[in-house]
């Protein structure tokens, strides 16, 4: 207890270490909370999901915070779903068996940019005759534009920008050739060029049902240019899923790899020092061979040939680090420890070799390894990211590295989707620096010789 208090006092002398400890604490809390809130299976389902899961989120949308940096407001996603009670249906019986249900979607559009897409999704239930959907677009200045019509299959979608008749109508309205519907529908015809007309828009969708028990559910989505706090990627996935799930994965990989390599190298060094002679020599030579084995290329080879599972990678990392260069440092320390009187005492009461190594020598050195161990964590966190960027990330799990990989493959830097790279990169950096700051301070606390300098 006293020791703990003294230690916390020493740590407090390094403000950077306090910051680092807070970061590590938050990351650890995140690693516990995230898997509870978004269970593993749910995370995998979301991340592997296609249009069925992410159909109603915009593609490559910036996060909300982009609005703080740009002049003018970027549109958010506007969504109405008749299945959820939107649209004030008005039912009119036209004739025997034929009904008309009219939905009105009324929304305010106060933004300065056009939405990225406008779609309507229809889910119809019928026996033989497909329901018919007709849409009328009413702008704030009172113009009425026939937006299109279609017969609805059990599941169909109408993409406004792909309707050529609508496009021709809009070209006449705006006087701009090849204008796409998501822009033309919101254009202010009074202004030169494409300018958003702000105000209240109405989309009237009337559905004609030719059977008594047939029904249509409509979902109208005007896709925004921003989405959530993390934005979306090229497959419309909310990046927040990967950013959050990246926390437990990065922590698990970094910490397990750091602990695994430290414990194994230390044990090997202790065994070598204790038995000495040829065994020690062999271990030394192994270390030299190991220094020449290129870790990342071999990891990549294993990933390409066998499996890309993150846990296999972890195993190989530890295996290749058993004879790491750190052995030399530990060896120097153990050589001193071996000569201490308490080891002699243990020998004199007949303690076995293994007992001396694992109960007396290693525990003595253990505290000294903590700074090294903590400083090792960022290296492994970045290693995982590096593997993912090279396309060898775990096939199912969402990680920070995989987000960077996707972004890189889609040319995010070139196309200006900076958030896509910045978000995972900044998280990686925060995690890396958190551990590095603490490791640095601990190193100075444990090594008084450094503290003076």
């Amino acid at each position, binding site marked *: 207890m006293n020791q703990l208090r003294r230690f916390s006092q020493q740590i407090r002398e390094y403000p950077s270490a306090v910051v680092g400890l807070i970061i590590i604490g938050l990351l650890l809390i995140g690693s516990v909370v995230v898997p509870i809130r978004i269970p593993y299976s749910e995370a995998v389902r979301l991340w592997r999901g296609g249009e069925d899961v992410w159909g109603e989120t915009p593609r490559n949308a910036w996060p909300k915070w982009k609005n703080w940096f740009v002049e003018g407001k970027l549109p958010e996603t506007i969504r109405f779903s008749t299945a959820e009670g939107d649209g004030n249906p008005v039912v009119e019986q036209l004739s025997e068996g034929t009904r008309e249900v009219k939905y009105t979607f009324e929304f305010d559009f106060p933004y300065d940019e056009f939405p990225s897409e406008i779609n309507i999704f229809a889910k119809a239930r019928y026996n033989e005759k497909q329901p018919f959907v007709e849409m009328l677009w009413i702008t704030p200045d009172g113009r009425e534009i026939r937006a299109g019509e279609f017969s609805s299959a059990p599941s169909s979608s109408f993409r406004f920008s792909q309707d050529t008749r609508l496009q021709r109508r809009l070209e006449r309205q705006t006087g701009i050739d090849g204008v796409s519907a998501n822009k033309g529908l919101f254009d202010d015809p009074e202004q030169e060029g494409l300018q958003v007309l702000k105000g209240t828009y109405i989309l009237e969708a009337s559905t004609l049902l030719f059977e008594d028990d047939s029904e249509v559910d409509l979902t109208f989505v005007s896709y925004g240019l921003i989405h959530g706090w993390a934005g979306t990627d090229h497959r419309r996935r909310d990046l927040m899923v990967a950013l959050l799930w990246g926390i437990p994965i990065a922590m698990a990989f970094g910490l397990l790899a750091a602990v695994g390599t430290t414990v194994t190298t230390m044990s090997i060094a202790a065994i070598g020092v204790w038995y000495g002679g040829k065994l020690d020599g062999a271990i030394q030579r192994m270390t030299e061979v190991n220094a020449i084995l290129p870790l990342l290329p071999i990891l*990549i080879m294993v990933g390409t040939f066998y499996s890309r599972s993150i846990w296999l990678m972890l195993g190989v990392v530890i295996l290749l680090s058993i004879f790491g260069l750190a052995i030399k440092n530990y060896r120097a320390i153990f050589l001193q420890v071996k000569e201490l009187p308490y080891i002699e005492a243990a020998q004199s009461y007949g303690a076995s070799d293994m007992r001396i190594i694992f109960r007396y020598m290693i525990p003595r050195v253990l505290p000294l390894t903590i700074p090294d161990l903590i400083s090792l964590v960022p290296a492994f966190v970045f290693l995982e990211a590096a593997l993912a960027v090279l396309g060898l990330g775990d096939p199912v799990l969402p990680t920070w590295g995989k987000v960077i990989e996707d972004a890189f493959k889609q040319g995010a*830097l070139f196309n200006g989707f900076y958030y896509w790279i910045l978000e995972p990169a900044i998280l*990686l950096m925060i995690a890396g620096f958190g551990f590095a700051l603490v490791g640095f301070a601990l190193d100075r606390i444990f090594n008084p010789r450094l503290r003076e300098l």
Partner: protein
Amino acid sequence: MLQTEVDLQEVENVERQARKQATVRLLRYSAMKLLALFFTVAIGVYLTVLIANMGGYVDEIRRGQIRESVALTLTTNPEFQKLAEAERSKIMNETIAIQERRYGLDQPFILRSFAYLKDALTLNLGFSDGITSDSGSRAVRNIILERLPSTLVLFGTANLLVFFLALLFGLALSRSYGSFTDKLVLGLAPTSSAPGWFYGLFLILIFAGLMGVLPYGGMVSAPPPDNPVEYGLSLAQHMILPVLAVLISTVFLTTYKWRTFFLIYSSEDYVQMAKAKGLTDGMIERRYVLRPTLPNIITSFALLLITLWGGAIILETVFNWPGIGQLYFRAIGVYDTPVILANVVVYAYLLAITVFLLDFIYALVDPRVRVADGGEKR
């Protein structure tokens, strides 16, 4: 008068002999190191072959090679072309079987593995599955040799810069110990926990994406300029960002570490003595601080280089630099086994050569190697 002249002669003789002996020792030390390193590389490559062949991939390379060469010799034979289809495939299969036996593919793995080791060490790794060199060759050796210079240019420049900058800054900081810059470098040292490619992302974003002053990647502008001066300028322009990325990720921690070495050595008694004698600061630094620190610095630099080589693959990928790292990345993408294997071997060689060069320099700067036999090191 005459007496002293004779003495001088004698002294000179002794000195010359000592120098000769030192050179012999140095050479012997280097030769021993080289030999040891060769064995180390052999063991390392052997391990690589073992890992790769756990899934039988090396065998496949061999089989593919045999199939290709047999097909080539047979199809160019006019007699063979006249035969019927069934007959042809029968002869083909028989020849392949004979060849496979000739290359020992029917032997137990332990014997074959040594043949593979020899092939791997000589980079005789056959033909790639699909990747070609720019000159159109599919021989793995050609592909790799073509790309090696780009990697060496980039990392050679970056590493030399890191070395000299860290040395200069380290010395400067040890002089102004406790100053603001000193504390700043100390504060920035944890930035080295992130690797170079990671800073590369930010650099590309800022200098290529936002400011548009430097290229996104690549080695020279397309099409490459014919004029050697323009070529060099274009190369230098493309090198700025990757080199800067390496620098940011290494220079602060390295400077901090080396400054600490300098500080430790400049608090030695003999430095105080030199100061008391009234030697200039420059002389003290060169003779009494830098000399004893250099072995430590070289060891630290060796460790740094080993990690930098490891990061080459991804740094080159991020900057689209046409070196062996990027080649490796492409080979992974198309599962080109021979190229992947050869790359691992080349990296082992690069590491070994780096270690050897540094060992050699180590021997030059550490007087213990020249004085004592073999030399107690590290």
